[in-house]
């Protein structure tokens, strides 16, 4: 075999391995999606979105309370984590060389690796025990704590990618440091930051463990922030481990709705970043 054809063969083999790896990674995803959709779609109907859970023994009913609850706790989590996360990211990129920034970076990475149940216990300790009350707020706090490090690190990395000439341009026009960051550098990185926030949101929307001790669950509909609130993940968990056939079907439907909520968030973010990039680029 000539030298060139050997090189071509080797190249083809490597490309083949890469393609195979991608396929292997996609197979579980395809299976999960297939099962959730095929099982979930059977018990998905208007009632699921509008009705409350039925008592044991009665069939039908829905998870209106849990859908609203999931939106509430993830919304509260974002409200709490987005400003803190972005501002921490700004600090870590602006004062990148300092010890405090290095410590913050290390802390963020560590927090990111803390098991979510531990964060749930922590939120239980500071937001449930003192008030002797499970609440949506406590759930939002737990989820927010999980979002902060992801948002902070994403923001930091994206800000460091903005060319230094952009900042210098603003400084040269008489901008203060803060002004340069908030009016030029941060907006340049905004499309990426939005994507980062949505990834964080998608990750925490699927969390169950931190909510078990914080938002707990609720058989009834509530939008009160100081009351326990049902969420899709906790409902899916409770229903899936129950002995009732009907509840199992409801759990599949709950999982499907959860996936849809995340999907819609991603699409909205994609749309928003496209528009932003469009405005910035052409």
């Amino acid at each position: 075999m000539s030298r060139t054809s050997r090189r071509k063969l080797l190249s083809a083999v490597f490309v083949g391995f890469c393609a195979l790896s991608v396929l292997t990674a996609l197979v579980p995803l395809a299976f999960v999606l297939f099962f959730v959709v095929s099982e979930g779609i059977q018990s998905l109907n208007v009632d699921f979105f509008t009705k409350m859970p039925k008592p044991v023994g009665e069939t039908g009913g829905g998870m209106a309370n849990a859908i609203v609850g999931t939106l509430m706790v993830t919304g509260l989590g974002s409200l709490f984590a987005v400003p803190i996360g972005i501002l921490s990211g700004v600090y870590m990129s602006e004062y990148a060389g300092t010890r405090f920034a290095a410590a913050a970076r290390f802390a963020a990475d560590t927090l990111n690796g803390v098991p979510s149940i531990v964060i749930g216990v922590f939120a239980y300790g500071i937001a449930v025990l003192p008030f002797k009350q499970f609440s949506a707020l406590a759930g939002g706090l737990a989820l927010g704590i999980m979002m902060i490090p992801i948002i902070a690190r994403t923001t930091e990395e994206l800000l460091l990618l903005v060319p230094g000439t952009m900042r210098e341009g603003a400084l040269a026009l008489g901008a203060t440091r803060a002004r340069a960051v908030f009016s030029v550098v941060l907006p340049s990185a905004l499309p990426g930051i939005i994507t980062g926030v949505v990834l964080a949101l998608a990750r925490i929307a699927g969390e169950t463990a931190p909510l078990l001790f914080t938002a707990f669950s609720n058989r009834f509909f509530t939008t009160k922030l100081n009351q326990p609130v049902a969420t899709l993940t906790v409902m899916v968990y409770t229903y899936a481990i129950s002995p009732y056939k009907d509840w199992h079907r409801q759990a599949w439907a709950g999982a499907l709705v959860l996936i849809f909520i995340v999907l819609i968030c991603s699409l909205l973010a994609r749309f928003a970043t496209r528009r932003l990039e469009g405005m910035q680029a052409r």
Partner: protein
Amino acid sequence: MTSSGDTPGLSVSLSGRAAHRPAAEHPVKIGVTNLSFFYGDKRALHDISIDLRANVVTAFIGPSGCGKSTFLRTLNRMNDVIPRARVEGTVSIGGRDIYGADVDVVELRRRVGMVFQKSNPFPKSIFDNVAYGLRINGMVNSRSQLAEAVEKSLRGAALWDEVKDRLHDSAMALSGGQQQRLCIARALAVEPDVVLMDEPASALDPIATQRIEELIYQLKRDYTIVIVTHNMQQAARVSDTTAFFWLGKLIEVGPTATVFTSPREKLTEDYVTGRFG
């Protein structure tokens, strides 16, 4: 804003005639005395003393790494952001040492504008790019005043006719040469006295370069201009005074024609005739 009258390209009268006098007769705008600059322990500039005169284009030439850009950036304290950088000596603009304790760097940078090697428009509309400095410095009180000032600056940078119908399009969609003129317009908008240009045409094609050079020629009626360039033909074309830097030292400064045709120093002669660099 409204007090300064004519657009730069149209003003004749005093400053128009002034430009024809020999450079040495113009008043000193920036006086630099024994300036040294250090990056940590490394000394990048050695005892530089030079007078930069009003309504004159001064070109800094020299091989890469000779300190000409560093020196330019000491004139609006852009080097302040570099950690462990240190300045000795004085730079006085309008009689005040800009490294003095009471100097407001933000105000200094408004008065000493800067145009960078690589055009750096903000990812905003053309209008917002020019309006940026006016807004952050609180220089306008109304929308109409802002629009007027933006138009005036764009005319000053010879860009108005090309962009007047698409002021609210993104600045990123402009060509490289247009982006650089936008950056010049943005710098002019805040009414500086001095405009520093760090190789403003090095990334542009010959036609765009020619437009920038014509613009520089126009601008010197109203501004003191300092330009760093790698291109000696460019220095010869646009400047009245040329300063040659070598290894962090100012080797020679004089009228451009003299520096290029009969320099005092052997080093300068070797450089301008292309024997090194």
